[in-house]
């Protein structure tokens, strides 16, 4: 395997600088103050991109799983696994940040940390589905078989994403925009906030790419080390 090229390093540096600017912009730019939201509206830049990044990661993972099934190339299996791993990390962070945001914004004075908001619940279910993916992988010994079964399951897990995160929560009453009775995101968001928000989404997806490629490179090195004959 070649060492990472110039473009790779440049992209990585751009991602890190970009995210630094996003955090600065997220805290320093003026935003309209809305009752009970106040400054927590800034969480739009941090909580929501977690989910966008998770979905992008799961999409990448499903893509490589599909490619694995058609090519039986082991690299595809490694890529699918690492993308799903990083995606799950972002999903857990999305869940944790959402809990804190809701606790001190909508549930003030009630002390509720978890209120079975439809989107929150479905997101937790989605993460459990991916948890089963990792468990499934751990339970099959033979690499070929593991890769094949995991790829098929991964396609199922990815197919659940649009339904659990979009279709179902939008049918019910929820704190999230676009749900029953709530205006859609684009109707209620100030232009400057939208700029920072989209920048944050791009930045965090870039960060996913950095973390994911690191893991893939590491896995490739591990395989090369395995090729060295054992003394």
């Amino acid at each position: 395997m070649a060492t990472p090229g110039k473009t790779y390093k440049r992209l990585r540096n751009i991602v890190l600088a970009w995210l630094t600017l996003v955090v600065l912009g997220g805290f320093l730019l003026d935003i309209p103050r809305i009752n009970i939201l106040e400054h927590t509206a800034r969480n739009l830049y941090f909580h929501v991109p977690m989910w966008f990044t998770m979905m992008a990661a799961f999409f990448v993972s499903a893509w490589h799983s599909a490619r694995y099934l058609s090519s039986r190339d082991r690299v595809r299996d490694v890529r699918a696994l690492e993308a799903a791993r990083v995606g799950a990390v972002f999903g857990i962070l999305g869940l944790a940040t959402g809990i804190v945001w809701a606790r001190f914004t909508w549930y003030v004075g009630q002390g509720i940390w978890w209120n079975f908001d439809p989107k929150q619940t479905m997101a937790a279910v989605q993460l459990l589905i991916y948890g089963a993916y990792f468990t499934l992988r751990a339970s099959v010994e033979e690499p070929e078989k593991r890769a094949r079964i995991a790829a098929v399951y991964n396609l199922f897990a990815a197919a659940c994403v649009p339904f659990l995160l979009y279709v179902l929560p939008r049918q019910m009453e929820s704190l999230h925009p676009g749900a029953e009775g709530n205006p859609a995101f684009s109707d209620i968001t100030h232009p400057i906030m939208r700029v920072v928000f989209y920048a944050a989404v791009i930045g965090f997806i870039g960060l996913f790419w950095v973390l994911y490629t690191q893991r893939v490179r590491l896995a490739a090195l591990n395989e090369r080390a395995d090729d060295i004959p054992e003394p």
Partner: protein
Amino acid sequence: MTIHAIQEADTTYGATPYDSVWTSQEVPVQQPDALERTMLAQDKLYVVLAVVLIIWIGLAAFVYRTDRKIDRLERKLDARISDEDASP
């Protein structure tokens, strides 16, 4: 902006089945405790701080785990390559 907080929930429809606090019930509103007083200061800016810190700690933990994998690889390479050098 119509965000449905529990206090404002329309009680004419009764409780929603997925809600752990029945909307038809009187919701007991407590006095803000110490944690809430801290988090709600500065127009709730500390909530944003908490969210960013959670993300930072989570990502740092992930990087830490990657680092441990690199450690393991280094040990594996050390074991295999040094033995190879010694053999001829």
